[in-house]
């Protein structure tokens, strides 16, 4: 047998290309095509206004401008609102925007007009010449204003509430009333955003000779974009190809589709008969792509002397921005994943999803979980503080135990299925984490630092993450006559290392060399049935599908090889692309098997002569059996009954400067359980990236809207994404592997995990250092300083 690649740290093969600047992103495509046109968008400068008039008369005078579109130029399905992608019965007042604003704008950045010109410079010059007469309306900015509902975002949503959803298991309020102890907490999380290195971008080319549209988009779902483009432009699906080239990060924002430009670019390409490109710039990304995170929570909790939860009642308000294209996914995830690894005896959760005159809110890595984790873990810490217990003891008292899986919470998850955890071992994770961070030795360290006049704190946070949601993914494995293996799966890749991880699976399952496997993702020409890359689902869904498709290809290879070698299939093995009869010299290359799999009339080279009609086959039978197909291929789909639940725990030791209130990370530890690891190096990379992004969300990043709805920090100068100098220089990682029983590889998703507990763990550590509650995140030194003054005043008054 060859060495098994599954589970080993195979270096990412894609990095050579990316690090040498050889990646091909949307903006790189067709760049030397002299016919290529460029688009720019006029965006609303107001958060809330009626459009009285749009005057584009001056635009077409600009030399180099080819066309301009406003809402009035759109017809048919293009003139209808954009799709509400994920409807839900509780979303009683769902609203989506138009590709170009009709009558009203509801956030700064909303698309109003679309200009196509010979280059982006000219297109922007032209945009500056469009005159719009606005009647300004008072905007609703922030959750407090949305709840107060003194003004509304949409006239026909009088209380700004798009949806209200309640779920309950048991009787939480009665349990709290009867509990020996009870606490009330009010908690806040602010807005942030994915901010991938590459913004959105779309290129489209209409081929009049074949009446075929090709769209390249920087998306997390090429099949989703394809469906929308075909429907909106009135094209048969078979006439539309959507291809996802290299994508410079997504983190959720690119799963939203269709963005207005994803429709307008193809429309312009068809109308003008020339290829058209739109490349979003950074300011546009801040003000017109999606944000996330902002929620306010009110928690009531009842517990016993051990800190065991008896009843948990959570009400929260979720800011979903101006429209609801992605339905209720984020608040549903918050409301269900808030529970983490714990089993409250009685749980009630109710949320209101609110309109505000700000950018839409859709999933951002973690997708509602960071907020839920923050709320649950703050509650655990509050209980521990109230009872004077170690924070790990209170958590231990509430863990679902390893023998309780599958564990049913009696709630409905984001995929419309029961919230049932498949597997996990939370006590083992906690034991590893305490060891890794030095939990039991921390008080000595605190004393040592205090002696030097330094202030330190430790915090921990636990999470469970539903990963690998359905409905399905598929894979097609094709062994060519060269012996090379071409694999297609439909979901997209935005930096995860799928070429490496998926090729590891194929190499192991099929018995071929890793280098001979080529993976294609996100190309609807190769795999038209697919969902997308989000919700930590690619490894689970496509990884499983690729495994299953590889098994099918292998089955066929063994059948044909057995005939050729006149041996039993049971005696064959495939190693490094060679099928051999175990223990003998008899063997045949997979490439030759591929030749034999395809009966030919015409030989196209030396090798293929072996498959021609006078060389092969039983003349008494059809060349291809009734239940067979030509070619050495395997195709299969994987569709799970429900999500797999990965889990993990983070701990951090921080130092808070007694003078400047600056917060420094001294140690960061992660215990992570995503079932079997395909490639530990890639999983650790995901954790590193997630932690870095989490540090940003906890200590640096926010969306600074002023009361008029202007985003004051719409650039990387003022939106403080951490530099490498702000993230921990090392992250201690330990893995636990509790396999999932739901898929053939026993794997769970890993993409989002690193970011989920950040707000919770930093709040805990800062609270531990400072000695007063931290109830709102993110936190800056300026805010920590203000809290110090407030609590100094309080203690003085007390």
């Amino acid at each position, binding site marked *: 047998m060859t060495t098994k690649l599954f589970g080993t740290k195979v270096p990412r093969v894609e990095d050579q290309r990316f690090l040498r600047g050889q990646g091909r992103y949307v903006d790189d495509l067709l760049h030397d095509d002299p016919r290529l046109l460029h688009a720019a968008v006029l965006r609303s400068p107001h958060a809330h206004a009626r459009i009285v008039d749009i005057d584009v008369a001056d635009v077409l005078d600009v030399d180099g401008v080819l066309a301009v579109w406003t809402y009035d130029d759109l017809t048919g399905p293009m003139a209808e609102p954009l799709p509400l992608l994920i409807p839900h019965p509780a979303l009683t007042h769902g609203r989506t925007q138009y590709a170009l604003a009709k009558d009203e704008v509801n956030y700064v950045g909303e698309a109003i007009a679309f200009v196509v010109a010979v280059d982006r410079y000219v297109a*922007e010059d032209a945009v500056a010449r469009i005159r719009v007469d606005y009647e300004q309306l008072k905007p609703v900015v922030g959750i407090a204003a949305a709840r107060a509902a003194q003004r509304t975002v949409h006239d026909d949503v009088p209380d700004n509430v798009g949806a209200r959803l309640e779920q309950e298991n048991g009787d939480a309020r009665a349990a709290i009333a009867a509990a020996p102890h009870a606490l009330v907490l009010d908690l806040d999380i602010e807005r942030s955003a994915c901010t991938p290195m590459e913004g959105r971008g779309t290129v489209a080319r209409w081929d009049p000779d074949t009446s075929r549209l090709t769209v390249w988009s920087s998306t997390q779902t090429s099949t989703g974009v394809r469906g929308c483009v075909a429907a909106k432009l009135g094209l048969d699906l078979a006439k539309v190809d959507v291809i996802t080239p290299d994508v410079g990060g997504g983190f959720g924002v690119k799963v939203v589709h269709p963005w207005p430009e994803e429709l307008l670019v193809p429309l312009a390409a068809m109308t003008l008969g020339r290829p058209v490109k739109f490349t979003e710039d950074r300011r546009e990304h801040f003000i017109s792509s999606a944000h996330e995170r902002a929620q306010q929570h009110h928690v009531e909790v009842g517990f016993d002397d051990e800190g065991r939860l008896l009843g948990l009642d959570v009400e929260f308000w979720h800011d979903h921005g101006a429209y609801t294209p992605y339905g209720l996914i984020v608040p549903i995830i918050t409301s269900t994943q808030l529970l983490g690894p714990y089993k409250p005896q009685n749980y009630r959760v109710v949320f209101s999803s609110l309109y505000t005159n700000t950018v839409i809110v859709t999933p951002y890595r973690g997708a509602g979980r960071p907020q839920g984790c923050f709320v649950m873990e703050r509650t655990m810490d509050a209980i521990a503080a109230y009872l004077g217990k170690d924070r790990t003891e209170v958590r231990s008292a509430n863990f679902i135990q390893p023998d309780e899986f599958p564990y049913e919470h009696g709630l409905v998850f984001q995929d419309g299925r029961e919230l049932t955890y498949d597997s996990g071992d939370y006590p083992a994770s906690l034991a590893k984490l305490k060891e890794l961070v030095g939990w039991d030795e921390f008080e000595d360290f605190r004393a040592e630092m205090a002696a030097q006049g330094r202030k330190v704190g430790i915090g921990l946070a636990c999470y469970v993450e539903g990963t690998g949601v359905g409905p399905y993914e598929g894979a097609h494995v094709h062994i060519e006559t060269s012996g090379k293996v071409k694999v297609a799966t439909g979901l997209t890749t935005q930096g995860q290392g799928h070429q490496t991880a998926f090729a590891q699976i194929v190499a192991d399952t099929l018995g071929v060399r890793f280098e001979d496997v080529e993976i294609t993702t996100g190309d609807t020409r190769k795999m038209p049935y697919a969902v997308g890359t989000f919700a930590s689902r690619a490894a689970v869904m496509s990884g499983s599908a690729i495994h299953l498709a590889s098994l099918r290809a292998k089955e066929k290879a063994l059948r044909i090889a057995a005939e050729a070698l006149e041996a039993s299939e049971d005696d064959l093995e495939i190693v490094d692309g060679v099928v051999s009869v175990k223990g003998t010299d008899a063997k045949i290359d997979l490439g030759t098997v591929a030749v034999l799999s395809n009966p030919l009339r015409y030989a196209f080279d030396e090798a293929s002569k072996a498959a021609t009609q006078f060389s092969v086959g039983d003349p008494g039978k059809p060349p291809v059996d009734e239940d067979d197909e030509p070619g050495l291929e395997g195709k299969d789909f994987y569709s799970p009954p429900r999500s797999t639940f990965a889990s993990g725990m983070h701990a951090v030791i921080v130092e808070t400067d007694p*003078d400047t209130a600056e917060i420094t990370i001294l140690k960061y530890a992660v215990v992570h359980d995503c079932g079997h690891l395909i490639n530990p190096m890639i999983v650790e990379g995901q954790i590193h990236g997630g932690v870095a992004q989490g540090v940003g969300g906890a200590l640096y990043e926010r969306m600074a809207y002023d009361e008029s709805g202007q985003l004051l920090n719409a650039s990387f100068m003022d939106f403080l994404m*951490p530099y490498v*100098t702000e993230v921990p220089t090392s992250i201690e990682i330990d893995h636990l592997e509790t396999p999932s029983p739901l898929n053939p590889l026993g794997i769970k998703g890993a993409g989002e995990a690193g970011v989920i507990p950040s707000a919770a763990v930093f709040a805990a550590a800062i609270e531990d250092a400072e000695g007063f509650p931290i109830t709102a995140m993110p936190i800056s*030194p*300026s805010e920590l*300083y203000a809290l110090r003054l407030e609590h100094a005043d309080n203690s003085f008054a007390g």
Partner: protein
Amino acid sequence: MKPAPFAYLRPATLEEALAALAGEQGAKVLAGGQSLVPLLSMRLAAPSMLIDINALPDLGHVTTSHEGDATGVRVGALARHAHVLASDEAAEVQPLVRMALSHVAHPTIRNRGTTVGSLVHADAAAEMPMVLRLLEGSVDVASVRGRRTIPAAELFAGPLESTLAHDEIAVEAFFPALAPGAGVAFEEIARRHGDYALVGVAAHVETDGDTVTRARLGYLSVSDVPVVVDVTAALDDPASAALAELEPVDDIHATADYRAHLVRVLTPRVLAAATDHARSRAGEAIPS
């Protein structure tokens, strides 16, 4: 994020550049471009012409002189921050230049951005304008009308506004040398490494033996121009004396209160460090 149309000129001589600038009211001078190019791209500035001075000869120097009134560091208009930062001679003659430059942005920006460009950009959150002001340096400017020297005290007119006339190009900055018995120190607090500081403080202290004879502090980001405060008479509470001259304001990164607090934290620290520096240099100068 593409600039509005502009004419572009890359003159080969200073005379040519000055003539072009004098002849075009809407022209802007391009050196390192680290502030100007983002402004152009965001269309916050739309000059009719860019006069790119990067091809001009003899402006890339970082030189030091050790004699008379002219003792100090001379930095040409095309000397990049990285070049100035790397100059051991400059750091020896005036240590504050290197102390402050190490806080200016990031290596990639310092490789392109010019120190003189930063001075005339006159950002009150930038390090070098405040340093020039604290050191009582100057900038030499040229125009078709001739040359003149603008003392730092007269260089900064307001937020992002220098006193250069439209037709003038800054050709050289002069940072006076650190006198024997004097010391300097610099510290700033920024949200991220290399960002504009929330508050930055530099100190320049002159001593005579153990006695501080003159103490001055420079502040950035707590007023709309770089501010220098003489605290010689307020050594018992220099921060209060400084705050009387400063105008910290709220922004999205920090409150005015927090900035004032940082002034109180940093002022005594930086003053003490500069005093120690002065004493250590006095010790070096007169070996016992």
